[in-house]
């Protein structure tokens, strides 16, 4: 078998590595710098991604609270806002410039820094080596670089908030000409330069990480770990990495052209433009729509880059805590694959109202709605996994159930928006906000929480406080629905996105009360997240210690490693794998670890 041939080399290399690790440990003390800062241990890098992601999540969440304050209380003024934001909230009222800067940065940060780097950066790093049985990533150095490029991107993005005319404020999609012309919007000046630099650094980080994940999964699985024995988390992270590697470069090319248009007088995206106060620009012949094609060629796969890891983790956690095998493993892998392929073929459904060729549009309608099929398979398989299980409501499990609920709710509205004739009416309204926040934002966030709660004992060798976790779950689930469910109705009233104030609009001003309600709930939900953060950091240092190697009775390899694994993960030889990851409740046994050889009397499935 080719698998065997491939597997021998890494197993040997791993051993060697491990011996080296021991040697390292005994004779040199790891310095603070090499252990916590420029670490090459995938587990530490995972934690770095996680904590940086948390910082961004707090900032991004806080931004949403601030702009919801404006939407919910357009008449009120809050003097303390001026204390915090200075000229951006003169007289205690957020200015339109600040509002749009907040909306834009909230979007950029949450999509890229939290739900891409924070989610797949954390769990790809943490879980891939531990679950496939590898000492570390294929290239630990590249892995370290991946984090530090992300860190650099973070610093640049953060600095853009302190420039004179403010950060970029043209929406996270950064459509030119608005994003190309400083004269069209103050945020499109220095703020946009920094935004582009930050995003370029982010793309580099993402590529370094993604290539590493793919190489590791393909080459460094332990003996016996064939691809079809991989836990679904790894399959999901694998497809995520493939999506990123194939689509981020296209985004990058789009940014390069934008940089040229902004700085070097080219006209890739610019044509026939007259700006008030400046006059007619010389650029002719460019196409503003070209950028949208390049952007959404990443932008749509990006949705799945965010969602697939959450799907993978939810699959794993649902199975472990139902004490039942995941239903339809091959169908789960197949549907992940189908989603990954289709992710590349649907980007123009974001562009139905740009005037694109109707025939082209119809092809994109067909392919878009096709995604509903693998998504339906996944949902029904999750439901069947719960059926006749023996469910333990660990916090991770509850967030996984919440994930499924949100994925259904948000996914179904995708059928509305993917159908172009209906999209014409709903495009760029609050219906879209409701749709993507539920299915991509909150659902993936739930996947991330599920992952954090579930693997926290493996990450820190301690438990988080359960009462706080349950409180966090129920407030967040109920709150998320209360925030985003009513937005569907605003969308059905045609209420456009990205408006600073609706009070002058005869058609949209009837929602003042609802907006206040949503803003209030948003603040409460935000506070509940602080509760989570407190629980997290407190438990890192003071949580109850984990005393058993495998607290959940789980089959996967990470629970065969020591409670606090060192660099290299396993002491001694890497365990060999004999079966798939989902033998729960088989032949009357509660669970059978992947490392247990198949018995002679064992039934086959």
């Amino acid at each position, binding site marked *: 078998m080719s698998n065997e041939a491939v597997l021998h080399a890494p197993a040997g290399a791993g051993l060697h590595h491990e011996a080296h690790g021991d040697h390292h440990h005994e004779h040199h003390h790891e310095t603070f710098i090499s252990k916590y800062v420029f670490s090459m241990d995938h587990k530490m890098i995972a934690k770095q991604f996680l904590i940086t992601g948390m910082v961004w999540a707090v900032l991004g969440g806080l931004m949403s609270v601030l702009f919801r304050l404006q939407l919910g209380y357009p008449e009120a003024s809050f003097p*303390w806002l001026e204390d915090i934001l200075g000229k951006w909230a003169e007289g205690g009222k957020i200015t*339109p410039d600040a509002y749009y800067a907040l909306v834009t940065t909230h979007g950029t940060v949450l999509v890229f820094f939290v739900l891409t780097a924070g989610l797949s950066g954390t769990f790809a790093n943490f879980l891939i080596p531990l679950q496939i049985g590898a000492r570390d990533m294929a290239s630990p150095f590249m892995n370290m670089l991946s984090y530090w490029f992300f860190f650099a991107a973070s610093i640049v993005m953060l600095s853009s908030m302190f420039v004179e005319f403010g950060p970029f404020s*043209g929406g996270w999609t950064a459509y030119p*000409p*608005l994003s190309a012309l400083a004269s*069209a*919007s103050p*945020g499109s000046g220095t703020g946009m330069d920094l935004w582009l630099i930050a995003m370029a650094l982010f793309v580099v980080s993402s590529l370094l990480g993604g290539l590493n994940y793919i190489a590791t999964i393909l080459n460094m699985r332990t003996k016996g770990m064939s691809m079809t024995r991989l836990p679904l988390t790894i399959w999901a992270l694998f497809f995520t990495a493939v999506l990123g590697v194939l689509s981020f470069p296209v985004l990058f090319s789009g940014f390069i052209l934008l940089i040229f248009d902004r700085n070097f007088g080219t006209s890739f995206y*610019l*044509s026939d433009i*007259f700006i008030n106060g400046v006059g007619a620009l010389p650029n002719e*012949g*460019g196409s*503003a729509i070209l950028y949208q094609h390049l952007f959404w060629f990443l932008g749509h796969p990006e949705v799945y880059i965010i969602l697939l890891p959450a799907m993978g983790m939810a699959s794993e956690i649902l199975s472990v805590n139902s004490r*039942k*095998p*995941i239903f339809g*493993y091959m169908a789960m892998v197949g549907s992940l694959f189908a989603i990954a392929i289709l992710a590349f073929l649907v980007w123009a459904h974001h562009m139905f*109202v740009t*005037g694109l060729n*109707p025939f082209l*549009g*119809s092809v994109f309608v067909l392919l878009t709605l096709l995604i*509903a*099929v693998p998504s339906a398979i996944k949902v*029904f398989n999750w439901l069947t996994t719960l059926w*006749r299980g023996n*469910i*333990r*409501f660990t916090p991770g499990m509850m967030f996984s*159930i919440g994930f499924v*609920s949100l994925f*259904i709710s948000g996914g*179904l509205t995708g*059928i509305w928006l993917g159908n172009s*004739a209906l999209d014409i*009416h709903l*495009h*760029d*309204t609050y219906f879209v906000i409701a749709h993507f926040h539920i299915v991509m934002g909150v659902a993936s966030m739930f996947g991330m929480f599920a992952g954090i709660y579930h693997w926290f004992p493996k990450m820190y060798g301690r438990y988080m406080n*359960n*009462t706080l976790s349950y*409180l966090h779950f*129920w407030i967040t689930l109920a709150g998320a*629905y209360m925030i985003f*469910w*009513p937005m569907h*109705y605003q969308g*059905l009233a045609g209420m*456009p996105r990205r408006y*600073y104030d609706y009070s002058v609009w005869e*058609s*949209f001003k009837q929602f003042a009360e*609802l907006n206040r309600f949503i803003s209030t709930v948003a603040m409460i939900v935000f506070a509940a997240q*602080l509760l989570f953060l*407190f629980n997290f950091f*407190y438990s890192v240092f003071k949580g109850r210690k984990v005393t058993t190697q495998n607290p959940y009775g789980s089959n996967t390899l990470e629970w065969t490693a020591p409670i606090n694994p060192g660099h290299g993960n396993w002491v001694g030889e890497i365990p060999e794998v004999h079966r798939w990851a989902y033998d729960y*409740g088989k*032949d009357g046994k509660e669970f059978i670890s992947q490392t247990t050889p198949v018995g002679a009397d064992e039934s086959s*499935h």
Partner: protein
Amino acid sequence: MTALLITAVSLLIFVVIFQISKASEYVAILKGEEHSRKQNNKINGFLMVVFLVLGLIGVWYCNEVLYDKTLLPQGSASVEGERVDSMLWLTLAVTGFVFIGTQIVLFWFAYKYQESDNRKVVFFAHSNKLEAIWTVIPAIVLTVLVVIGLRNWFLFTGEAPKEAMVVEVTGKQFGWIFRYPGKDGAFGKKYYKNIDNASNSLGLIWDDQLTHDDLVMEQTMYLVKGRPVKLIIGSRDVIHDVGLSHFRMKMDAVPGIPTTMWFTPKYTTKEMKEKTGNPDFQFEISCDQMCGNSHYSMKGVIEVLDQAEYDAKMAGQSPYFYTAFPDKDPANAKKDTVKLVAKPVELASKVTAKL
């Protein structure tokens, strides 16, 4: 001061929650972790059903409160938009059914199959039959939705009827400019480098005779009830979007790339005022594509009139050409002649007075 108070209270709540949580952890250890874990499991299992029930009530209540605030009760104001609404209802029926069904199953299963010492888990790893069922059924339902959707899509994006009137809509930061072809029924050429805010907001090429009778208006667009209208949409600066939610239509305004959209208004503005019971009702054009920091105020108005009212309105408009060249306006020319005539008379009278 209030801010300080709110912060203090929030902090206090945090501390209390934390202390309770911490205490419950100690209690759990005292009572036996396994015991309290099972207790928690029961509580959370029960809450799953509570959430389901309250959630479904919430969905119903939300609909009760908000339905009348949407555009659905008043129906589409364009003939074509009716198809959007019927599609919307069908899609709602399908997705609503799946939504309620799957959410009930999800939370009910969670409750029903919560951990119990007597339950024996069923090792059920796959079933080709089941998986085939839930692959094929969604595929068939979606095919139906796609077919209906695409028929509408090709109608909406297809050619406008021949009798349609044509209006050119141009977006700019932050307002709308409308151009009518005038008596000759044809638009004259334009070039953006000719734009001059004071006298030529669209950059019309005056050498082209066809521009001379074009009418240019800002803020309000006048349409005729029952007559299809084709909009030719463009932008002067960044991307905007002509959002016509009452008519269920929308199209981007892209600089350098003209787009089109057509529809047939069903009601006059006056009729809509009666229909909605809102004397301030307006067909608003909302810019639906982020276009800068005053995006939220980029509002236009469509006034739908009877043919007679429309004709009267248009008859009162003077071509834009005369705004650029007031001296060529026959109306001005007449006034000027009067003045020219008047002045000598005045002078003459003054002279006579002196004499």
